[in-house]
């Protein structure tokens, strides 16, 4: 079964003059365990699509299934629960809490989760994940004491702390130099191959997209037909809508 399936997503913004259509009928799918890149230039609608996929926004029309649930009908509070338990976010600018230790940053999503775990169990889990991303010796460092690559790895650990079904990475290497970019991307690949975590990389950079198993191109609010070909060999395809 698909982890993500969208059917004919439309997103229209009502601006002063008239309507601005950003998504014009996007249908795509993601299988569990895939590492997929969503590629498009700025203004192509990829950020809007990512917001909808990340349950931060809702489409104007169309249907969005996540893990079998129809998301576009959920209330804001229900979507918050989905975001908390099933999706991990990695942002371009890391978005770590300043003057807060790496460990506390990783623990942030657990504050809103109803996991039933004790504080000690949660801490142990956070430490374990930080060790997995190679920051086991930086638990008490604050973001200002960490390099960009380390900060992004803390952000990745934070995304993973609630055992999400999907990690959504929005330009994860946008603020990093090419060397650290490579490191972070390799970590994504490693997490995908070793732990089977589904990852969606949203980027405009072809080098980043090259690390994915398959690339979905988006242009002017539509999935490009070409992305089907590039996804060959990986089962279910993203299909462009006419």
């Amino acid at each position, binding site marked *: 079964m698909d982890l993500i399936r969208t059917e004919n997503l439309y997103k229209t913004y009502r601006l002063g003059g008239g309507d601005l259509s950003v998504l014009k009928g996007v249908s795509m799918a993601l299988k569990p365990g895939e590492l997929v890149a969503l590629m498009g230039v700025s203004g192509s609608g990829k950020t809007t699509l990512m917001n909808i996929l990340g349950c931060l926004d809702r489409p104007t029309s169309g249907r969005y299934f996540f893990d079998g649930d129809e998301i576009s009908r959920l209330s804001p*509070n229900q979507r*918050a*629960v989905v*975001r*908390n338990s099933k999706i991990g976010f990695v*942002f371009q600018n890391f978005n770590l809490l*300043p003057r807060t230790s790496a460990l506390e940053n990783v623990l942030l999503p657990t504050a*809103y989760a109803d996991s039933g775990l004790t504080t000690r169990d949660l801490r142990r889990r956070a430490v374990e994940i930080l060790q997995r991303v190679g920051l086991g010796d930086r638990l008490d460092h604050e973001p200002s004491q960490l390099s960009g690559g380390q900060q992004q790895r803390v952000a990745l650990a934070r995304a993973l702390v609630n055992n999400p079904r999907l990690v959504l990475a929005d330009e994860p290497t946008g603020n990093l130099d090419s060397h650290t970019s490579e490191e972070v991307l390799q970590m994504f690949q490693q997490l995908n191959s070793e732990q089977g975590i589904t990852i969606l990389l949203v980027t405009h950079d072809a080098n980043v997209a090259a690390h994915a198993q398959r690339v979905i191109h988006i242009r002017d609010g539509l999935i490009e037909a070409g992305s089907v070909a590039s996804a060959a060999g990986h089962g279910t395809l993203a299909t462009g809508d006419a």
Partner: protein
Amino acid sequence: MIKITTTLKTSFRALRRNPMRSALTTLGIIIGIASVIAMVQIGEGSSAAIKQTIANMGANTLIVFPGAAASGGVTFGGGSAVTLTSQDATAIARDCPSVQAAAPQVHARLQLVRGNQNWVPQFIYGTTPAYLKIRDWPIAQGRAFTNGDVLGANEVCLLGQTDVKELFPSGKAVGKTILVQNVPLRVIGVLARKGANMMGMDQDDVLILPWTTLKYRISGTALQNQNQNTSSSSSTISTNQLYPETSQNLYPTPSAVEQQDLPQPVSFPNVNAIFVAVPTASQIPQAIKEITVLLRQRHHLQPGQPNDFNIRNMAEISNALGSTSKMMTNLLTGVALISLLVGGVGIMNIMLVSVTERTREIGLRMAVGAKPRDILSQFILEAIVLCLCGGVLGILVGQGLSSAVKNLLGWPIALSVPAVVASVAVSAGVGLIFGYYPAWKASRLDPIEALRYE
């Protein structure tokens, strides 16, 4: 569901991230609470002091007067009946639980003679030693007379400052003897200066002596107008004694038969008033009730009969002064509350700044699963924590201020537990009220916009 302890921890962490700003923000609350505490405590202290002063003036005193005597349709006015006795005073002190002390009082207006000096004091009181305690009247020199002096009707007296000045130009009165109606009285003590009373009368123009001495040795009855058929023995200056020949008999001399049929008590042991001390002003009504019951019983009054005595208190004075001081305290507390309000506005201001500054954090929290309700409670809790810290510090500062006032200015202060409790509640309330709007604003942010906020 997010736990309150987690939110509390988050709030503390957020406040610790900006310690300087948190401290400055709470300063408004600290000042507000501190001034409320200081005002209330100093106010209560001065209120207690005023109450003490009023008590000294006799606010906690009751005076029992005899009722009016009437003869053939002619009444002689309040206090003319001869119903109160010194035993009544003893019984009141002994049997009424709300009464601290009771003392009888016998009045007279007589001339004092010392060598070639003479003087008629405004007040001559015959009483018991308890009287000085009830009136809170210390002895300046010498000693007070004792119950033994009262029982023995000893010829001793206490003089007021004015009388000492009039009779003893040298100023030394203790141990000397004065004459009252040719009865020698030894001055054993001089009373402390008390000044004018509320009616403007000089309270130091007084002679105090055992009531038995006044009653049985000097003046048969107290006042001339009290019992008109005994006029000869109670006037200020008895012309009868100086010029016995000119004395006119207003009434025919009773014959032997008449005297047998209607024996006149030679020395009726009545007193003119009974002074009663009550521990606190609030016990006055209870004391009045107890005295009324006791005296009705002692005077054998039937249920339908009116009281043959009147009880007066000075509650009016004490109420007036007490309410003045309460009003001042309320006024100052009001001013202090305004500063608390200003502190609250400061909290709101900083919380709004904080929400704007932490827009990205709010967006992130929402992205990782915080519901609007979680954000709302987090920011409200932050404001409340801020205010409570300010409140606690304010209480300490306020206590310090009032102790400083006590030590430096010598004003009385009283620790006010209700004020402390109320301050904590008020500061939490201020946090809730002034933290609500910024928190509501934060909870209404769109996570997408908030994440992108620069």
